[in-house]
């Protein structure tokens, strides 16, 4: 059998993160209505303005319809058949390891979180002089269970906490910025998120501060039939600098689970926000059963002059991905970047890309998208570059490459370019290639196994994106690519 035929024949190997954690849960009844929203709000001890915000969003959502333009297909989602709140019963914030639910610790272990970090997650403040330092926030279903390094960060004025806490402790900041980049009614899923979001991270970097460590959040959906609606808000004041990374996993289940997050980034003058995602939600089995529906709205506003927002994503999971991390380039000479690797295998569907909206003079954007499709999957890049009349001298460069493994998968490139300033320069390059039989043979003739050969070729294909990830995570991402494609090779 030819190698390609074997690839097509193969089934995906197991999803390593597909375990379920048996923790006593506080679970809201299924369904979505005002009472449920009130319940979420009261569980979170929210002020009245937050509840109002949610209720308004709910009203807006009820009048909206699911978008249909994406190249994804799924049976209708019954929004009344989900739990909108699920939390481990033991209260978060333990003082010693003994107080932490051992199941939670086991989960961290299975997620591959290093032992030291596990202890940190359990609430022990670590030695700030140790390297590398990564502050972690872990969001488990609807609540943030632990945030590390908070004291170290607060010494330089950096706020890194669950957003539910920020609503209570930093209401002015939250009121000012929440929904300022992604308005409630921006789209169907953002409205839903605004109504029912449960947790996520809040980051505030004051003027002139370089965040002394990587910030990172682990998102984990565990409870059955729950939706996860996280909300993340990152604000970088003038001259501030922050690098943030999120990782996501979920148990292996036959039914589909919904994830609809909203992420808003705000960068003022000379500020830089680097936002990296390694998304590995459960993708469903080889027959396309189960998996996460990932409908995410991520948008950054470069409000200040010379501000910069850079999105890097490695997307290997989810049954369906609907996600367009975007930059609104308002400031003069502001910079937007989007580096993406999206891998689809089996029956996965990904419709992902970015939007770069150029408003400021001399604003620049770079888009590098690498789509890898195997099995019967479909991988679509959808990107918008819009140059407004005010954006004199704006520039965009888009590089969009697709790699096919086998003959039954699809790669699609849908670029929209709208330029309303003649001095702007927009360049778009696209390529589609296949892992050719002769490439695999060449590698194998030199002694590499077929799997190593595929990894080498795939990593070569993604190199420009992987090098944008923080060092520690680039290695993880490479491993993840290898694991994701493991089943694709005979």
């Amino acid at each position, binding site marked *: 059998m030819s190698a390609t035929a074997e690839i097509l024949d193969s089934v995906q190997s197991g999803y390593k993160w597909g375990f379920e954690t048996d923790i006593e849960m506080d679970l809201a009844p299924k369904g979505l209505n005002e009472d449920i929203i009130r319940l979420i709000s009261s569980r979170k001890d929210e002020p009245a303005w937050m509840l109002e915000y949610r209720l308004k969003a709910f009203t807006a959502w009820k009048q909206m319809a699911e978008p249909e333009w994406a190249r994804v297909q799924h049976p209708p989602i019954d929004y009344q058949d989900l739990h909108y709140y699920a939390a481990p019963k033991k209260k978060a914030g333990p003082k010693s390891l003994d107080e932490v639910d051992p199941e939670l610790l086991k989960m961290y272990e299975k997620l591959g979180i290093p032992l030291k970090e596990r202890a940190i997650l359990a609430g022990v403040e670590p030695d700030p002089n140790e390297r590398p330092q990564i502050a972690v926030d872990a969001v488990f279903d609807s609540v943030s269970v632990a945030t590390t390094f908070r004291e170290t960060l607060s010494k330089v004025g950096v706020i890194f906490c669950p957003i539910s806490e920020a609503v209570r402790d930093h209401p002015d900041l939250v009121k000012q910025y929440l929904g300022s980049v992604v308005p409630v009614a921006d789209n169907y899923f953002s409205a839903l998120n605004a109504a029912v979001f449960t947790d996520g991270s809040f980051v505030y970097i004051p003027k002139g501060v370089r965040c002394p460590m990587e910030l990172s959040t682990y998102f984990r959906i565990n409870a059955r039939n729950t939706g996860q609606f996280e909300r993340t808000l990152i604000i970088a004041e003038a001259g501030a600098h922050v690098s943030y990374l999120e990782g996501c996993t979920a148990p292996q289940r036959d039914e589909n689970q919904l994830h609809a997050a909203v992420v808003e980034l705000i960068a003022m003058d000379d500020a830089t926000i680097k936002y990296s995602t390694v998304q590995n939600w459960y993708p469903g089995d080889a027959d396309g059963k189960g998996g996460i529906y990932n409908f995410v709205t991520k948008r950054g506003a470069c409000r200040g002059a010379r501000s910069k927002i850079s999105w890097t994503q490695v997307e290997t999971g989810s049954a369906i991905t609907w996600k367009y991390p975007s930059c609104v380039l308002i400031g003069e000479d502001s910079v937007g970047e989007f580096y993406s690797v999206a891998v689809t295998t089996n029956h996965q569907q990904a419709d992902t890309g970015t939007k770069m909206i150029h408003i400021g003079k001399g604003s620049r954007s770079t888009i590098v998208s690498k789509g890898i499709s195997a099995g019967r999957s479909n991988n679509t890049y959808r990107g918008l570059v819009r140059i407004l009349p005010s954006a004199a001298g704006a520039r965009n460069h888009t590089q969009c490459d697709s790699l096919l493994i086998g003959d039954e998968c699809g790669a699609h490139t849908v670029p929209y370019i709208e330029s309303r300033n003649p001095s702007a320069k927009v360049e778009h390059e696209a390529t589609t290639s296949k892992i*050719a039989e002769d490439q695999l043979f060449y590698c194998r*003739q030199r002694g590499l196994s077929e799997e*190593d050969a595929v990894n080498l070729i795939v990593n070569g294909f993604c190199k420009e994106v992987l090098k944008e990830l923080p060092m520690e995570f680039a290695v993880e991402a490479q491993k993840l690519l290898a694991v994701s494609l493991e089943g694709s090779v005979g």
Partner: protein
Amino acid sequence: MLEIRGLTASIGEKPILKGIDLVVPDGEVHAIMGPNGSGKSTLGYVLSGRDDYTVTGGSVTFNGIDLLDLEPEARAAAGVFLAFQAPIELPGVNNANFLRTALNAIRRAHGESELDAIQFLKLARAETKRLAMPDDMLKRNVNVGFSGGEKKRNEVLQMALLRPKLAILDETDSGLDIDALKIVADGVNALRSPTFSALVVTHHQRLLDHLVPNRVHVLAHGRIIRSGGPELAKELEKSGYADVLAAAA
């Protein structure tokens, strides 16, 4: 020792090799010559295990092991190396990384320790220097944007690093200038030992001047129609394949 007995192979339904008998004892270099389309490259692919080629009969043993039974990577580990007539490009894959991965795969298969990046670079730099190749050859992506001659030299570099027991060179000298040709020949000569043998596919006596083969075989229409000593190549260079073909017909 390489022993090929009655080997037949097809591509799809089309028979290409129609009964090859060939023995290459340890330490010997044999040249394979023959008109275009006669099956020379096919022989190299079949020996190294390429998928689209179906072996329909015969046997191949190398140092006593049945080669046809092995996956391509296992054949590589057993010491088989094919210098491709048209080396393949691997976009984004750094040449040094590729070579190190390959070398370590083979070292692993032999139960040897893997080389780290620094150990490998030291080794690779020594070889590039010996082969008069620019250092940046290691930094560039595998064969991407290489000139024809650079690609061929890159094959020789790989051979030098992987130290095969059986090297099959498929027109590695074609399209090379005289200096590059000498480098290819030196590459093979440097490996020569009582435990190394080579099959060298070539159209040119020039390469054989440097290599001096133990035997020369003429392959035509999927069969070896004539074998002889080094003088056979000289004869072919003078009078072409026509006489040999006519005599065999």
